[in-house]
């Protein structure tokens, strides 16, 4: 029996003073329990909303999110866009926060948090505060905070958006290695087509708002992938193909900018 996340005809409206805005319009897809799925689309297409719906942070206007084959609703953990780390907690307590909220005793939660902090290469920073860390380190902490709760589904909302190209490449590679060491369903939202192709087994292309799925693309790269020091000529045509789907919206967005 396959264990799957099934998203069926998902709609989401937001109330606004000028009437309802439809963010998502009939999004359907399925993803099995050990897949790495990237969701790519132009900005403002409802990618984040889709993640928040799957996380249970907001309710759909219509349609459903089903967890097929799981005995109970699987644990989902989100890596937020701007890390969402608490400025007032040190790295150890930030990472252990999810466990603390579950009521796990301090010894146990610190032990588990330290193990993940070590795996992220941040041993020396457990007692530091987020503002003392670089952007890449903060993002590692954010990933550790999500992973420490041992989620079955990891939701990532443009986690590497603010990082420079080199740091981003390193973190992308680390993420793939974490995922191959401990398979789980990863839903990774990005607006970067190349990132989506390099990381995902599958790429879902979302349209402009109201967002719906334009295409599902299987990425022919083999796993495990090593991103550093490689070029990937075989993905060029894929990249072009996705860009052609998104381009009209990006153009339209650009033309809209001066009017705001």
């Amino acid at each position: 029996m396959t264990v799957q996340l099934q998203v069926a005809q998902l709609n989401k409206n937001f109330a606004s003073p000028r009437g309802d805005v439809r963010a998502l319009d009939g999004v359907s897809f399925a993803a099995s329990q050990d897949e790495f799925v990237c969701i790519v689309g132009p900005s403002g297409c409802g990618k984040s909303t889709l993640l928040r719906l799957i996380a249970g942070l907001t309710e759909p206007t219509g349609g459903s999110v089903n967890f097929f084959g799981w005995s109970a609703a699987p644990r989902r953990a989100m890596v937020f866009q701007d890390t969402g780390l608490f400025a007032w907690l040190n790295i150890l307590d930030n990472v252990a926060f999810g466990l603390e909220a579950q009521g796990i005793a301090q010894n146990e939660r610190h032990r588990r948090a330290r193990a993940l902090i070590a795996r992220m290469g941040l041993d020396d920073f457990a007692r530091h505060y987020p503002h003392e860390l670089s952007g890449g380190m903060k993002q590692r902490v954010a990933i550790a905070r999500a992973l420490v709760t041992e989620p079955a589904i990891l939701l990532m909302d443009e986690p590497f958006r603010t990082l420079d190209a080199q740091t981003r490449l390193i973190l992308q590679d680390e993420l793939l290695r974490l995922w191959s060491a401990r398979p789980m369903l990863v839903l990774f939202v990005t607006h970067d087509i190349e990132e989506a192709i390099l990381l995902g087994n599958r790429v879902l292309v979302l349209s402009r708002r109201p967002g719906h799925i334009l295409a599902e693309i299987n990425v022919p790269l083999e796993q495990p992938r090593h991103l550093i020091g490689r070029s990937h000529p075989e993905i060029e045509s894929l990249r072009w193909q996705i860009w052609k789907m998104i381009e009209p919206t990006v153009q339209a967005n650009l033309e809209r900018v001066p009017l705001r």
Partner: protein
Amino acid sequence: MKLQNTSWFVPTFFWIGVLLIWEWGANTGWIARLFFPAPSVILAAFARQIANGELLIALGYTLARLGLGLMLGALPGLLLGLVMGWSRAVRVVAEPVVAALHPLPKLALLPLVLVIFGIGEQSKIVMIALVAFFPMLINSMSGVQQIDSQTWEVARHYNARGWILLRRVILPGSLPMILAGAKLAVNVALLITVTVEMVTARQGLGATIWLAWQTLRTENLYAALIVIASLGLLTNWILDQLTARWIPWQSDHATR
């Protein structure tokens, strides 16, 4: 290096010079001694009243009233503020009352408070508590409200509730504003303590000043002022230390 030296050198010598001119002017009668007794006379009065305990007893009364008033005013203000910031329902009910009472100059209530609570200690404590209550309430309320939506979302995502939500998110998230509110509350409470003591008390620093004025012992008035000013400096220093210790993620920015 040179700049660092002059940064304390110049003001120190300037103010020593001012004191010397004041001393000389008062001694020669060039400055009215009744209003501005010579610094040496003030210092002597200060030393005498410290030695015979008068100033320390007055300080004790003032501190006791201040402390009790803060406990009965600032603490409930903090708690109600946190609850109002947290719960929209409580805020909707309580905010109009707060908005109506907060801008009212609390000293205008003194006669009413005297009628209700009498001329004894109770009315003084009530006045101090009243003025300490509002800045604490308003700051802790906006402290909770300015916690950003992503922080709330993270807390909700991990199902943080009750004590953990309060201790890990709400309290530390609003702490910078709470401490700013505490500073406001302490300063305005000190102001009102001295004022109320002038009007209705026989002991305390305010009463000392009032008595010195009535008997035209201006040097005693200045001596009491020295104590009050030191008290203000000390409470502010303590609160700044607490801020640096409890908000490392902000004070680090400030010192860098």
